[in-house]
């Protein structure tokens, strides 16, 4: 197929082939969807330790004396709260309050920040970031923006045993790099960034590595018995935690307020892109809100775009849905009018022209130990 010829490959492509991964297209990249099977990989992350190739994700460095002022204008959270070595979740909005991307911002130096953006959004984000910067007219010496995506790899190490695994490679790392923190470390003879973050709901680390060293780090982790996991398990794990996925829960027409992410929007900040809209939605409400649901009994798994019904009316659709490996039942998220969105309310999911009962639950859908 012609499209396949244009797919991008990560520095771990050969490793995936050797491990017998099933490769699929994802956001323009040829990525492993599974190695052994989604259930086995999901369970490894919940009970032991798994790792994901996340090299497809984009990295943008923002530095200079105006880096903080710029990022506080570009993003929704308050980056003034970040000390060196700290990170936070952010939304990047358009002027309409819609979401250009969701991302993690780390302060990696006094005047230096690293943004980890979605693979499928690199081509939209970089021009947006540059356009916002151009509108602020800082002197060139005061603000540098560099898209490092093409020469940067990354691996997420996730699960209860991830601390022991990382301690074996970098003694002392778990005490130094606490939740939402990031630090430079030497691994496989290279400087890598080690962050205590993830997308699974488990304790874990995300390693940002120069492309040419990524496979060597992957092999070090394999030697520690870490199970390679594909995008399939990444999706079931994040859906159980109700973490949004761009293109499903978030898009250019959907705001952070509608997606239930208001706690990552610092309305107390001075002007930032999209602020007026988010402020108005916060005060006057929205026409849709994101809910999490769980099927009441046996049914086929809910899938994206299946209609959601309340009181005999189609009121919205599923944005993410799957069989929950941890709970053994269908789960999902979707947008409904705020009037139908309270936890405990019932709704129905239409699956192949039949409707199946489900209940709205508080997020996250899955909690360990209960």
């Amino acid at each position, binding site marked *: 197929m012609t499209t*396949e010829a244009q797919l991008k490959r990560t520095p771990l492509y050969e490793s995936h082939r050797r491990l017998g991964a099933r490769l699929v297209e994802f956001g323009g990249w040829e990525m492993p969807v599974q190695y052994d099977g*989604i259930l086995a990989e999901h369970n490894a992350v919940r009970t032991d330790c798994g790792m994901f190739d996340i090299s497809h994700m984009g990295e943008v460095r923002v530095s200079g004396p105006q880096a903080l002022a710029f990022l506080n204008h570009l993003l929704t959270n308050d980056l003034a709260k970040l000390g060196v070595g700290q990170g936070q979740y952010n939304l990047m909005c358009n002027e309409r309050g819609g979401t250009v991307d969701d991302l993690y911002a780390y302060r990696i130096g006094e005047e230096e920040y690293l943004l980890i953006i979605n693979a499928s959004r690199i081509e939209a984000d970089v021009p947006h970031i540059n356009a916002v910067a151009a509108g602020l007219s800082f002197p060139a010496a005061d603000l540098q923006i560099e898209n490092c995506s093409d020469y940067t790899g990354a691996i997420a190490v996730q699960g209860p045993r991830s601390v022991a695994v990382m301690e074996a490679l970098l003694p002392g790392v778990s005490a130094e790099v606490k939740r939402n923190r990031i630090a430079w470390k030497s691994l496989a003879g290279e400087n890598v960034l080690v962050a205590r973050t993830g997308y699974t709901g488990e304790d874990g680390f995300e390693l940002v590595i120069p492309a040419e060293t990524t496979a060597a780090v992957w092999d070090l982790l394999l030697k520690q018995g870490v199970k390679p996991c594909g995008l*399939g398990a990444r999706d079931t794990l994040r859906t159980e935690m109700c973490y949004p996925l761009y293109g499903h829960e978030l898009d250019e027409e959907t705001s952070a307020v509608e997606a239930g992410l208001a706690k990552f929007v610092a309305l107390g900040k001075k002007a930032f892109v999209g602020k007026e809209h988010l402020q108005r939605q916060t005060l006057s409400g929205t026409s849709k809100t994101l809910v999490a649901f769980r099927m009441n009994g*046996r049914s*086929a*798994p809910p*899938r994206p775009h299946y209609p959601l019904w309340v009181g005999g009316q189609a009121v919205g659709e599923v944005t993410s849905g799957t*069989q929950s490996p941890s709970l053994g039942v269908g789960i999902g998220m979707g947008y409904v009018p705020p009037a139908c969105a309270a936890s405990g309310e019932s709704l129905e999911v239409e699956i192949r022209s039949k409707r199946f009962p489900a209940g709205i639950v508080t997020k996250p859908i899955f909690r360990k130990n209960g």
Partner: protein
Amino acid sequence: MNVPSDLKYTESHEWVKLGKNNETATIGLTDFAQEELTDIVYLDLPKVGDEIEAGTECAVVESVKAASDIYAPLSGKVTEVNQAVLDDPAIVNEDAFGKGWLFKIKLADPVELDELLSDSDYEEILSEKESQDEDEEEEK
């Protein structure tokens, strides 16, 4: 790849076991199909009494990742559905040619049997598929 010689097959990876005088048939998914799907979590099967038509979608199998159609290998009336696989779809992954059977039918038109593949025909399709995959890899 396991392809029992006493069964008939379809290109869409269903198997058929014919009963006495070719009047009835048991239908399931091949080992190849279950391995491709992995982690089967739900089955939508026809009900007893339903009429199914050869070559058309008659059931749905759901893995964690996706829903896939199952095509009727033959036309006929459904006489029995495997309740065990409805209760525990993982049985199809564990024993696709045995305990993982899906449903039984009474054949409507025995002439359709000529359209089914023998075990050697089906094996050939699987090996062609395998070499195609290898060619694709080499092109890359």
